[in-house]
């Protein structure tokens, strides 16, 4: 049989078109899913397929768009019937192939929804296994409007078959998927996952797809599929009709083919007639094989970052090395601390975030997976997954939504053998360190030689040179003063040889005083020699000064707009800090976080940390609390004060000696199982922290067992539970019962929009508060024994 992979890449093919409109025209009742007819009216499905075969379609899609094991327990029966119908229609026609149709699951993946990534892979995997069992020629993943679900479907297809995989996404009028991905982001991810053809379907008519096709053709090396709707639907005389006639449709499809699309078909509203006319309109256009693009690109779930002439900043602050607070956060599973580091760097303007959570006391692979998933829910920057542990890389690459940067591989055979198979499977651009089992060569030529070895080895794994970013390594000038010159020479040679180059710039000054002065000067030299990516600290003003000045001086910043914005922001920040100089008490009462920090830093120079808490923070919070109770201020102002107090407390905490901290005041907080609302619980958390409590925040949708486990491991005797929905209050009652059964001395306080004091007593809660301030008072009374 003809190899479909070769056909896809070397000839123009035609898909079929819509199913719903055609089937309704031959009797499918409105509201009945088309797949139902696989079992009840197979002859009608065969008739539909046959009409497309006769129209000239090569890729006949199975009638399985809406089938999965979540919707149908007998999904396999549906798939078997769908494949049988397609096979019957095709018969012995050698020009036709059966494409197994894999549509969206109908559910949203975590973190936006409740379907886990692995459950999604399994859901799609079950379909693929059934399709393979009954015999199909390829898999077409279609109408996906979420990049993460697309990735789950592709992995399912790849892990359960060796069939060609075609992917089309549904873009909206803004040219993005509903969850934000641009075509470039999808190209980066899907090419990384090594699918066989990519493109678009559904959403709107062929007119709107013209500009998208241009973007695909400019950035992708894969065959492009275009399956538009017959325009937008409307109801006329009780029937759904579409705005494009078959002639208009075909005329646009001709333009689309000329722009480079090689696999053409239709979606909603199109019929065999549309496909027949499309074929007539395009068959004289010479087939042009998609050209190989040499674009180094990584992506997040929204956008791609191209590594080219403009320098790329990679934030280095998510890394425990040399950071005691960061290490403590990882030990305590304080993910918010890590997320904060990511958000702050993103706000500073970095393009990519390096993520390193490696330290001996924790399970790095699990932590990496957790942090990567959470970071992707709060920032849309692409991530650089940084680990020497292959299992940490594997777990995080698998669940990463996009095409990641990987840090790193080196010239040691073992390193390449562990990292390259992961990149081949999941996609990614990788930082290649110019070192091997013999160490780091002293000369630039030696480092370039290792880079070439890595690039050649990568090719054996199907990884292109464009996805290798060489790091010729910075060694500190404090131990070898010639090292900066060696590194710069290596950068220059690598650039001449067409490599992309990255450096961990700050290493150059290790062991020297006032490191930022050396770092920024070296950064500038490296940029002048062609550096593409710098792994750096965006909070170092000198480094950011160099970056913005370099961009302005090298005509990479149109009308110096970014430089001017950056410089202006610096000036405004300084002025605001000067004009808003307040006492710590006033800053907290007024809810000014930016003023609270300098105020507390000044106090810490002359007063004891615990004195500052007792003399300024607690009185300010108490006064704010009284104003809130007297309705002189409202909840937003109370929360602003809590934010300001928390910011101050973070600075104070660092200065409190371990043996002097008030470890006695602690509370476990959780939103009960089944409830995903956590704003109320978070408010209670922040107020408790402001008052110096150690809070074990278990999050939302928390099962009782997790709370029991936390009580056992922390020894904490006070639990706060929250529930917002009437449907989850029984879950709160159950949780309280389990806690009281297991522990005589643990008290449970409760709150939440639907709770009342009466009800809290009925479910045997030990305390109830209608608001967060009241919850703090309850906790205080627990610890001063007046509870």
């Amino acid at each position, binding site marked *: 049989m003809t190899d479909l992979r070769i056909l896809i890449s070397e000839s123009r093919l035609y898909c079929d078109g819509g199913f719903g409109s055609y089937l309704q025209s031959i009797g499918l009742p*409105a*509201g009945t899913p088309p797949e139902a007819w696989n079992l009840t009216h197979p002859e009608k499905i065969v008739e539909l397929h046959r009409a497309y075969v006769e129209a000239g379609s090569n890729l006949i899609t199975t009638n399985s768009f809406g089938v999965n094991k979540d919707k149908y327990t007998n999904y396999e029966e549906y798939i078997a019937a769908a494949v049988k119908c397609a096979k019957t229609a095709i018969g012995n026609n050698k020009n036709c192939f059966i494409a197994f149709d894999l549509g*969206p699951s*109908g*559910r*949203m993946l975590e*973190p*936006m*929804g*409740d*379907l886990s990534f692995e459950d999604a892979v399994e859901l799609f995997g079950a379909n693929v296994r059934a399709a393979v069992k009954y015999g199909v020629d390829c898999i077409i993943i279609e*109408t996906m*409007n*979420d990049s993460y679900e697309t990735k789950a479907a592709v992995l399912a297809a790849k892990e359960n078959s060796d069939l060609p995989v075609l992917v089309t996404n*549904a873009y909206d*009028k*803004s040219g993005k998927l*509903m*969850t*934000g991905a641009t075509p470039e982001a999808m190209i980066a991810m899907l090419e990384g996952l090594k699918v066989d053809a990519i493109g678009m379907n*559904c959403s709107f008519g062929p007119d709107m797809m013209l500009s998208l096709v241009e973007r695909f053709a400019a950035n992708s090396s894969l065959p492009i599929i275009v399956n538009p709707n017959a325009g*937008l*639907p*409307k*109801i006329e005389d*009780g029937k*759904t009709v579409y705005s494009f006639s078959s002639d208009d449709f075909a005329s646009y499809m001709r333009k689309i083919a000329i722009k480079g699309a090689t696999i053409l078909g239709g979606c909603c509203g199109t019929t065999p007639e549309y496909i027949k006319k499309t074929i007539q309109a395009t068959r004289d256009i010479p087939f042009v094989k998609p050209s190989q693009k040499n674009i180094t690109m990584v992506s997040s779930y929204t956008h791609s970052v191209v590594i080219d002439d403009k320098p790329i900043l990679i934030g280095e602050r998510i890394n425990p090395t040399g950071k005691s607070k960061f290490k403590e956060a990882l030990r305590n599973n304080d993910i*918010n601390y890590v*997320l*904060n580091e990511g*958000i702050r760097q993103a706000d500073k303007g970095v393009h990519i975030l390096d993520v390193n959570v490696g330290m001996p006391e924790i399970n790095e692979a699990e932590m990496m997976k957790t942090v990567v998933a959470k970071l992707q*829910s*709060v*920032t*849309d920057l692409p991530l650089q997954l940084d680990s020497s542990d292959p299992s940490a890389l594997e777990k995080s690459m698998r669940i990463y939504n996009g095409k990641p940067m990987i840090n790193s591989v080196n010239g040691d055979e073992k390193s390449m053998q562990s990292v390259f198979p992961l990149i081949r499977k999941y996609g990614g651009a990788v930082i290649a360190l110019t070192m091997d089992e013999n160490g780091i060569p002293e000369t630039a030529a030696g480092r370039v030689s290792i880079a070439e070895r890595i690039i050649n080895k990568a090719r054996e794994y199907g990884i292109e040179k464009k996805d290798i970013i060489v790091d010729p390594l910075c060694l500190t000038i404090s131990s070898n003063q010639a090292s900066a010159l060696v590194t710069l020479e290596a950068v220059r040679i690598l650039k001449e040889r067409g490599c992309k180059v990255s450096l961990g710039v700050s290493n150059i000054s290790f062991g020297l005083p006032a490191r930022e002065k050396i770092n920024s000067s070296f950064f500038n030299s490296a940029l002048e020699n062609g550096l593409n990516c710098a792994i750096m600290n965006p909070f170092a003003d000198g480094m950011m000064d160099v970056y913005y000045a370099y961009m302005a001086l090298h005509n990479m910043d149109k009308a110096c707009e970014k430089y001017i914005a950056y410089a202006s922001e610096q000036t405004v920040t300084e002025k605001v800090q000067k004009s808003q100089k307040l006492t710590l008490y006033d800053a907290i009462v007024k*809810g000014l*976080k930016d003023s609270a920090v300098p105020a507390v830093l000044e106090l810490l120079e002359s007063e004891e940390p615990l004195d500052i808490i007792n003399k300024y923070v607690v009185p300010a919070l108490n006064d704010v609390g009284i104003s809130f109770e007297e309705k002189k201020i*409202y*909840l*937003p*102002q109370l*929360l*602003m004060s*809590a*934010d300001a107090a*928390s910011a101050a407390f973070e600075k104070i905490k660092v200065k409190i000696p371990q043996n002097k901290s008030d470890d006695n005041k602690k509370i476990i907080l959780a939103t009960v199982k*089944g409830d*995903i609302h*956590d*704003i109320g619980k*978070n*408010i209670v*958390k*922040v107020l408790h922290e402001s008052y110096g409590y150690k809070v074990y925040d278990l999050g939302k949708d928390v099962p009782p067992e997790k709370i029991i486990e936390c009580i056992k491991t922390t020894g904490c005797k006070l639990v706060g539970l929250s529930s917002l929905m009437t*449907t989850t209050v029984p879950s709160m009652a159950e949780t309280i019962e389990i806690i009281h059964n297991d522990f005589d001395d643990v008290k449970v306080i409760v709150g939440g929009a639907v709770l009342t004091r009466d009800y809290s007593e009925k479910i045997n809660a030990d305390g109830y508060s209608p608001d967060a301030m009241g919850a703090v008072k309850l906790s205080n009374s627990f610890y001063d024994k007046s509870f």
Partner: protein
Amino acid sequence: MIKERFYGEIPENFLILDRNEAAARLKVARDYSNELIESCEARLRRSLKCGYTGVLTDIEYGDDCCMDFGFGPVNSTALYDNLNGAGEAYIFAVTLGYDVDILIEKLSVISIAEHFITDALASAFAESACDYAEKEIKGTAVCGRRFGPGYADLSISVQPQILRLISADKRLNIKCNNSYLLSPSKTITAIMGKKQ
């Protein structure tokens, strides 16, 4: 039977925040004035990606306050009373989009005040978007009050059928989880009887 389909986007600048609604959700006085609230509103507006999708459909009435809008029987005394014998109903969904959820999630990490304010404002914006969509959909038709799943005795378990009827997944990527909560979280579905 579906009579008409509706689908549209709502430009951010078309949305007028009802200050009374916002004040109620922020738990502040109606004449509130606060720099942080203003800045949260401006940032939230940049994340709005509002859209609506809906249908005009026949209503068939059965016994015991049972109604059929084209997706199977629904039992609700309150909705039955609300429809007041209308022969047709507009059924629609409005969403602020996923960027709003991402913004709110991000703020939960960096500031509890901004998190609370933005979440409250987003809920108020969802109501504004619903008002806008209602006007666009019904045009000059006279309708009863909007009625939503989860209100009174109309179970939220009808959400999946409603979403399917109005192609909410395909048009706006609105999904329903196993607890019948919708994604994006700032999404409203509504049923509105069309008076004869």
